[in-house]
């Protein structure tokens, strides 16, 4: 589903370049649950952003669903986002002004889902995550674990093919972390969602079925 060939990312620094990623070749098949690991500054997040079409690589080729991403227009890329990609962030990144319900609903709005379908889909997720009672609360009224649950619900509400998670448990204590990781595992196994996560924790990585290690921008 995802193929990276000789992907590099660098920034101009003085007269030279600072490389963040170097010649990354990576193949991710549908249904995989991959953990990207490595020390701070090894390029994990950058790799995840490139995979998630939030950043563009400086060099190399990226095929997403067999389409060369670099050649896509911004519009086309937004389309891919809307239909196939979900994001989960370490800092949850919910929209403060929207309720739990509305936060989860947002991707469906962009996708253009009909009102009735939206209602049933959001209700289904609220039910599944045991958050029905909290649907009218605002993010700041929730605990970190609950916020991240909303984050995950938002990431999967539009039935994406792949979820990119950037240290999804980084701000949570262990019990909440376990809850989220078990949820990921379930999504991966039962719903067949491909998951790519960045994590520091070997324990979290254990939920997946492959580990990609980065060091100084190189695949280790």
């Amino acid at each position, binding site marked *: 589903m995802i193929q990276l060939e000789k992907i590099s990312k660098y920034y101009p620094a003085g007269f030279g370049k600072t490389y963040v990623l170097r010649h990354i070749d990576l193949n991710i098949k549908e249904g995989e649950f991959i953990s990207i690991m490595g020390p701070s500054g090894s390029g994990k997040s950058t790799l995840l952003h490139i995979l998630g079409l939030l950043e563009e690589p400086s060099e190399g080729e990226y095929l997403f669903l067999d389409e060369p991403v670099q050649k896509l227009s911004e519009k086309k890329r937004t389309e891919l986002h*809307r239909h196939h990609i979900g994001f989960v962030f370490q800092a949850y990144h919910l929209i403060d002004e929207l309720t739990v319900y*509305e936060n989860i609903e947002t991707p469906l709005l962009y996708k253009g889902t009909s009102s009735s379908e939206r209602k049933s889909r959001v209700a289904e997720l609220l039910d599944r995550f045991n958050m029905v009672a909290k649907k009218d609360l605002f993010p700041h009224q929730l605990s970190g674990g609950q916020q991240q649950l909303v984050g995950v619900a938002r990431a999967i509400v539009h039935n994406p093919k792949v979820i990119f998670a950037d240290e999804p448990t980084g701000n949570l204590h262990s019990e909440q972390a376990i809850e989220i990781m078990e949820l990921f595992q379930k999504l991966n196994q039962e719903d067949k969602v491909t998951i790519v996560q960045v994590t520091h924790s070997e324990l979290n990585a254990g939920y997946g079925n492959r580990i990609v290690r980065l060091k100084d921008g190189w695949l280790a």
Partner: protein
Amino acid sequence: MFKTFLKIAARQLWQGRLYAVINVTGLAVGTACMLFAAIYLTDERSFDWFHDNNPNLYRITSTYRERGELIASGGTGQVQGPAFQARMPEITHYARVMGGDIYGDVRHGHNAFKLQLLFVDSSFFKVFTFPLLHGDGRTALQNVNSVVITRRTALKFFNRTDVVGELLHMDADPSAMRIGKPLVVTGIAEDPPANSSVQFDILFPFEFMKVSFDDTSWLNAYLGTFVVLRPNADPGQVVRKFNRIAAALSQTQRKDHPEASVITYGLQGMTDIHLNTQAIPNQNGESGIVNTSRPVYAYIFIGIAGFILLMASINFVNIHIASSMKRAKEVGIRKATGSSKGAIIVQFLGESAILVGIAMVLAIMLVILLMPAFNQLSQKQIALTQLWSPNLMGWLVFIFVTNIACAALYPAWLISRLTPVETLYSKIRLAGRNPAGNVLMVFQFAMAVLLGIASVVFYRQMHFIRSKNLGYNPDQIVKIAIQGVRDVQQVHHRFQNELAGDPAFGAISLAGEFGNRDVVVKGQKLLANVRTVDADYLPMLEMKLTQGRNFSRAFASDKTFGVLVNEAFVKKAGISDPVGKTLMPDDYFGKQSFTILGVVGDFHFNSLKERIGPMIMPMSTHYGGGELWVKIAQNREHYAISKLESTFRKALPGAVFEYTFLHDANASAYATELRWQQIVTIATIVAVIICGLGLFGLSHLAIAQRRRETGIRVVLGATGYDIAIGFSRNFVRIIFTAILIASIAGHYLMHSWLAHFAYHTGLPWWVYAGSGAMALILALLTVFTQALRAAMADPVTVLRSE
């Protein structure tokens, strides 16, 4: 989708309600100003469009040379109209109109009113569109003593409008006296609309005026001749014919007056008259046209309003950009969850549109609320119902769209360019650096300071006008007008006898103004203002004689041959020893030599806009005059006026009593300046409020966004003062730049404005420094109070909450 947008917009507005209030207030005030300017412009442009004969309705203009100067006038003589029509099939109708500045006392029973008279051809109603309530326009003005009055005149006299056949009288009018019959009302016209250049209370047949003033000269230009051309006529061709016909018919008269200038005729469209004063700068007071304006007023008005609106937009832009820091995260999330750039622009524009929409509604309410004040300030009579014209709706839409374009497009575009990686991983800081915002603020403050400078200079000049020594003392002087053909000497005596010994009255002097006339002195001709006065005039007004003596009753010949002149006359004529020298005014004063008895110290008989020119003063005791000048005692004004009125009624039964305090008469020359002073003062206040609001919002935002930094600084030992200085530094820099720009611009603008006055105040440095200092103090106060409050907050809670 739309519903969520609305929802998030509403919550967003509620969260940032302080900023929303600032933005909406500013925009509402700015929009209201702009709407008023638009209303003004619309009204100015609407003048005279109501005539059905447009665009074929023209007036004949004359251009001639006077004292070497080319003069364009909206007037003709009496002969041109009929002569042209008789020889040119292109002219379907013509109407001569004389009046505008002509007023007369008209009486019905014991009720007399001073009315605006217009002497017009019987074709008046064919040429112009003034509907009649009663009577027939085709026949109404056919008899020499028939008149048409307006609705308000009818109501004034009769309390009703169906008054055809009623009689009116003019006791002191030369024509009415000669005809010896009362006037018969033959028609009642609707009041001329406020946006009509032709205004009247009563219409007389042209023949009525000719009874006492028949003029066959081709060499004059004083009354208005209006023509209706055939739709297919070529105006250029018509004008060429005018000049050919006039050249042929005026030949003999020209031989008798070889000194008279050649007159070239032209045409000016009726709807062009009100604003195109460039073409005809000299509006003859009797050419039927009144209230001409200059388009520049409307443009200045729109300019000021536009600047105020721009300042409000700048607030909007700056506050929006500054507060986008918080929204950046939202934009990042939205993009990561599948939003396109366009959707974000639409969302932010939509939110702004809500604010702008609220501001527009408020602006309309402001306009409705302030309409009376606006009418007073602009001297217009615009009804609220006129607001719903398509033209103004167009303006409303235009302002709405420009508001959004100016205020919302840039921030929306800026924010839509943010990428999720930038915003969600705090790779950029939007707060603080905003060079475009700084430039906008410099502009905004420069405008406010410039307006401040202007209002100070306007105020200083008006104060200068009020406190300037005019060369005479206008205190407690009342002028009473005596209209028409009256025995003024007898009226004067009557007043003197009645009021003699009354301590409420000082001297009572008879005076008359005869305008600028040619005076021959030492073999040269020069133009001098002529005013008739009597022996009491100079002492009453405390004027100084620099040479010679005042008029005296002891010398009988003073009455006919004595004259006083002013210093400017002596200087212009170049006489070294003026007393005893002779001069000769024009025909009116009997083609005889006058002997200069004394020289009066120069005094301002015109407004301070004009230099003091030469003046001669023969005696009113012989040559008459139309005004009684009375000095009245202080604090007895009320009694004095009523006493004057009762005396006037006894002396002139049936005439209208009209008085003016000399102070008011003098002030009326500055009505326009006073109005602009008020407009600029209001604009300054509004500008300062908008700038202050904007600064308040921006500093509030900056401080909110740097709470953490402030907390850390306080923990590290910074005092509240240090913090405030830190926050103010950028603002101070902006304001100093603004003061510099405003001072330079203000210097040029104010110099050119003051140049309109022959006598004016200076522009001392402190005008600029003072206006600037005011802006600076206001800004520092705004920023400091907020910064101090931020510094005072407990750093521990601040840091924990982050």
